[in-house]
């Protein structure tokens, strides 16, 4: 890639959301903004090789996109009012007074993650409008046909317009609940990248984990005092740090106890630990993401599995289960119980979860492991069989199959 191409790619990554967001504010129309931003990038691809990369690519793109939008509005005669509106606001209009935070991109994120939109639409719109991913890229990420994903995005944008979902950061009283919806979307993107589903996908999708981290960093620069935003970023960094050790050369998922800890990304771990300490120092009761980040901080502090401070992990799970008394949390807590009180106690604890988790493959995988440690080979094999049947990540299926076949 030459310098100019690289500059275009970088500008796309760094400036797409800002250009779309600024134009959405000016023209009050997410479609006009997106089309104009796409045209501006196309113009950059055409012009920058001969004219050179402008000193401020973001400003160049915003100005170009604004002109494109005005041209388009002029062409569409039925939009007389819009045209007048657009022309009157063209010159350096000061941003209108905002709620808690003054950033167009943040408004765009909250619009894309509005609770009146279905979860899958929120995911798709966020990746498209804020992340700048193309429709085919998003379709591939979520294993749906391109036309389906295109329709999903079109429908969501139509609902924003028809129902008049505001382009606005929610008021201070609504902010906490609305931020949690945004974080849930980003965590879904990350998890899909970290344990990708489907028989023909890479088991780990670094493009998605990277995008989720980038967007969460963006939210953190915009909402630096929100503990859960920081917690989620720390959680993602500490999880991402282990990625290089997570899939073996033969394409198997490597469990935490067998990972080569030397392969972990020390820089990401250091940053994650710093963020966890920052939240501890804040002295505010932590939410779900902060506790999960703290659990991951304990794991990434240990030299090996035995060295892990399991009582600290269990204490954190006890704290988490009070906030989120779900069977999945109870299952993960039982893994710490197994290390402290033995597999028999843990097995008794997870067997109680069977009615709720019968269709959840990690339940059967955990059970298989505990049964193996208790020397109950036949039961363990049956549990592995069930886990393999339910798992849909290729590397995980491979690892479960090997463990089952080692039972002898």
């Amino acid at each position, binding site marked *: 890639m030459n310098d100019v191409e690289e500059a275009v790619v970088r500008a796309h990554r760094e400036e797409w959301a800002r250009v779309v967001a600024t134009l959405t504010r000016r023209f009050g129309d997410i479609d006009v903004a997106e089309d104009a931003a796409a045209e501006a990038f196309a113009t950059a691809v055409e012009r920058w090789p001969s004219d050179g990369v402008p000193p401020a690519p973001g400003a160049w793109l915003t100005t170009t996109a604004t002109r494109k939008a005005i041209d388009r509005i002029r062409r569409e005669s039925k939009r007389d009012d819009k045209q007048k509106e657009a022309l009157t606001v063209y010159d350096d209009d000061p941003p209108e007074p905002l709620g808690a935070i003054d950033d167009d991109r943040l408004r765009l994120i909250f619009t894309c993650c*509005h609770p*009146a939109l279905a979860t899958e639409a929120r995911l798709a719109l966020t990746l498209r409008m804020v992340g700048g991913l193309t429709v085919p890229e998003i379709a591939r990420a979520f294993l749906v046909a391109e036309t389906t994903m295109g329709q999903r995005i079109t429908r969501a944008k139509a609902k924003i317009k*028809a*129902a*008049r*979902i*505001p382009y*606005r950061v*929610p008021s201070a009283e*609504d902010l906490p609940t609305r931020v949690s919806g945004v974080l849930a979307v980003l965590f879904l993107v990350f998890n899909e990248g970290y344990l990708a589903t489907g028989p023909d996908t890479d088991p780990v999708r670094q493009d998605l984990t990277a995008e989720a981290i980038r967007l969460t960093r963006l939210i953190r620069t915009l909402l630096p005092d929100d503990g859960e935003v920081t917690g989620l970023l720390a959680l993602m960094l500490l999880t991402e740090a282990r990625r290089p050790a997570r899939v073996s050369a033969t394409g198997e998922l490597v469990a935490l106890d067998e990972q080569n800890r030397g392969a972990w990304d020390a820089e990401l771990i250091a940053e994650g630990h710093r963020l966890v300490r920052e939240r501890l120092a804040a002295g505010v009761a932590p939410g779900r993401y902060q506790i999960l980040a703290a659990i991951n901080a304990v794991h990434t502090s240990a030299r090996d599995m035995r060295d892990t401070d399991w009582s600290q992990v269990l204490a954190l799970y006890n704290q988490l289960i009070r906030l989120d008394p779900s069977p999945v949390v109870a299952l993960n807590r039982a893994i710490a119980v197994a290390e402290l009180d033995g597999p028999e106690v843990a097995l008794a604890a997870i067997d109680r979860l069977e009615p709720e988790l019968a269709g959840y493959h990690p339940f059967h995988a955990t059970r298989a492991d505990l049964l193996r440690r208790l020397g109950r080979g036949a039961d363990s094999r049956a549990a592995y069989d069930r886990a393999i049947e339910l798992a849909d990540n290729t590397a995980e299926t491979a690892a479960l199959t090997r463990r089952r076949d080692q039972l002898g």
Partner: protein
Amino acid sequence: MQYLVSVIDDKENPGSTDRQPAISEFNDRLIAEGYWVFAGGLADTGAATVVDNRGERAVVTDGPFLESKEYLAGVWVWEAPDLDVALKLATEASKVCDRKIEVRPFQ
């Protein structure tokens, strides 16, 4: 922007029947704050009649167009600047009516 705000009741699990005073009070507030356009409660779905004159002859049928356990019990039309304002009011309305509320914009 105007929104049609539908009050949805459930035949198997109906909302409580003592809501009228609270609804009247809520309506007074909607009027005072400028959101009110129109409102009305509906008679039972048993009182509905469907007319279909798309064919050669008009056909008149007893009953609602759709038989389901959930049904429309009443409507409001609100004037609100955006969906967030409408949803905030709908959240209160659901509590006041003790029923589900659907919010749908007019075209």
